[in-house]
């Protein structure tokens, strides 16, 4: 085991979405199996369960469908997280169901990922489902879309079939602003182009799915500049650290360095970073994704919910009136009279829906005006009024400061996912 190599690997989070028959579970099973991430006792348990349910082949879906009701019904309901590593990279898969009634689960799974795998059955070509999955990936700001055209074995590994589907896909998604799309012809069942290069498709000159996942460059940094939402104020009550007052949080944009000039928002008070800490270690700099404690030169009033931004970087918006694309997550439809609890970065306030601009038909991407409400799994555009001004960026500029959730004030359930337009 190369410990040094292991500790220096980076992390790729990707999502998959799919229905029962499109080979999603087989594809994941293939990735896990061929990268030796399935253990003997897991395999034995799956083999036993397959036999008990009368399945002839080993049902790899049982590896990912963990809940009793999922196993009984033979469907994926919830998001399941899977982990595997190759000597090059560590991977987290958010495995989500593909059916329209689980849109909310797809949105949830996609919200934390860097890459989305879109599966297309080579026999059927681009379908409503393809468009829906791709739309969700683009809505959630996923930089990389990898289209796996599966079941190539059934279409005689035909290059024409592959090229036609590729062209159809590009035509139908041309308005989605996809940045990086990659097409790979695979047979998950037989392993062609999943981990090993296919001998059946000499016409395909690209890399295998695993090779792509291992080498694709992920740029997680946002265009917004430095953003540091304050989570918690660290004030030790001890003689040694008597005057210590640190702001704990996670950097969600840009970098920080000792000496940087910063502005605390929404107050607008300026100061300078005097030290950066991670545990006992004092750091000169820290980058996006790091959780640190920052001390400032001036004794100013900053608490949870405030955001530190770099003085010389692009400034965020500050407003009570926010236009959002929202995915409704709850059985109780969205109400325009309820005062929802709004959670944005580390700040909470109340919010009321002022207008529903339109509802999106996610199978056709047509907008429907005059919608009265949003039901579970609906996606639409709304205007939100908040009880205090929020400090935000547009989602396309910064995923972390451009998103928020709605919490029901009675049940406290998370009922809506908002993307700031």
């Amino acid at each position: 085991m190369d410990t040094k190599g292991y500790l220096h690997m980076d992390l790729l989070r990707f999502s998959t979405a799919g229905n029962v028959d499109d080979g999603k579970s087989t594809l994941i099973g293939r990735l896990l199996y061929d990268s030796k991430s399935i253990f003997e006792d897991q395999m034995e348990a799956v083999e036993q369960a397959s036999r008990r349910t009368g399945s002839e082949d080993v049902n790899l879906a049982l590896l990912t469908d963990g809940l009793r009701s999922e196993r009984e019904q033979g469907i994926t309901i919830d998001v399941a997280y899977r982990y595997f590593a190759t000597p090059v990279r560590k991977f987290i898969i958010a495995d989500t169901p593909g059916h329209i009634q689980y849109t909310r689960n797809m949105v949830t799974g996609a919200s934390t990922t860097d890459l989305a795998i879109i599966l297309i059955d080579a026999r059927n070509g681009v379908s409503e489902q393809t468009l829906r999955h791709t739309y969700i990936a683009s809505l959630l700001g996923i930089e990389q879309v990898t289209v796996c055209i599966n079941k190539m074995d059934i279409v005689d590994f035909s290059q024409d079939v592959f090229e036609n589907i590729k062209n159809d896909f590009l035509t139908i998604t041309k308005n989605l602003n996809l940045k990086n799309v990659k097409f790979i012809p695979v047979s998950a069942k037989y392993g062609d182009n999943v981990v090993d290069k296919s001998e059946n498709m000499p016409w395909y000159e690209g890399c295998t799915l695993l090779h792509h996942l291992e080498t694709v460059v992920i740029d997680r940094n946002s265009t917004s500049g430095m953003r540091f939402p304050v989570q918690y104020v660290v004030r030790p009550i001890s003689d040694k650290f008597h005057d210590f007052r640190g702001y704990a949080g996670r950097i969600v944009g840009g970098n920080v360095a000792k000496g940087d000039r910063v502005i605390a928002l929404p107050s607008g008070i300026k100061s300078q970073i005097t030290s950066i800490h991670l545990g006992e270690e004092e750091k000169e700099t820290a980058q996006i994704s790091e959780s640190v404690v920052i001390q400032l030169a001036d004794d100013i009033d900053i608490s949870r919910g405030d955001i530190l931004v770099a003085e010389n970087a692009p400034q965020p918006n500050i407003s009570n009136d926010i236009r959002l694309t929202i995915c409704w997550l709850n059985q109780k439809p969205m109400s325009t009279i309820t005062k929802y609890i709004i959670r944005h970065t580390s700040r909470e306030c109340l919010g009321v829906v002022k207008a529903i601009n339109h509802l999106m038909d996610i199978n056709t991407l047509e907008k429907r005006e005059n919608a009265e409400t949003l039901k579970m799994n609906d996606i639409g555009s709304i205007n939100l009024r908040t009880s205090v001004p929020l400090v935000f960026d547009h989602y396309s500029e910064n995923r972390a400061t451009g998103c928020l959730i709605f919490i029901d004030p009675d049940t406290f359930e998370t009922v809506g996912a908002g993307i700031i337009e």
Partner: protein
Amino acid sequence: MKNTLSHIRELEAESIYVLREVAAQFQKPALLFSGGKDSIVVAHLAYKAFYPAKIPFPFLHIDTGHNFKETIDYRDMMVQKLGVNLIVGSVQESIDTGRVREETGYYASRNLLQTTTLLDTIEKHKFDCAIGGARRDEEKARAKERFFSHRDEFGQWDPKNQRPELWGLFNGHHHMGEHFRVFPISNWTEMDVWQYIFMEKIDMPSIYFTHERQVFFRDGQWLAAEECMTLKPTETVETRQVRCRTIGDISCTGLTLSKADCLEDIIEEIAATRVTERGSRADDKRSETAMEDRKVVGYF
């Protein structure tokens, strides 16, 4: 600019973020500390999350009374070193007061009984959040678990009706009497845990390293021949070189024949192994959905 944070540092940052959310969102959280490797890593992360301040919540240990001595010694050492309060919920006390009935027979275990003690302790101290070291890669029901996992007033988990968890926005709102289980190292694998322990030079209980122990063989695994275990007439006690890959109650902790005496050796061993760590846990083998069933009623 490319993201240059290593995966282990990214996982660390994520876990620290989650721990700080707990401190900010809950009135009275507690950290479930068993002295096992996962809770040791969570405790270490909590130390880093709030330094130079002390960890702002107590440790809670559910004591089955059937613990390995090394684990208890380690627990007491850690609590003193970190300067945190320790609260112990005793399964023996739950048995003595008639809250639960001790299982009998060769397969008797206090593993299931812990749930009652845990829920009683949470209720008694009015904890609104219990931080645990469970990981999604451990078991298929845990793969569906949230970072912030809601429990109703009976301590129950409803796997079909979990709150959606989007981005890094965690929702800890709850009604009186309900609580949350929070799992900061959800996204870590067993290998990540050991590599992190190695990287951060964290002291571990001696029981994780090879040692001589009185053991017996049952159903394909080695178990410790301690007083609380009843041997079948056909089973014999032997002395072997073993270590723990995972630590639970003595009655359900399988021991691995191993000569690993340092962290590098343990990492080598895990890299080569073809069986999951919970493969050595008898508590998971009771049925196909044993973990889900236990979690629904309030298990860790």
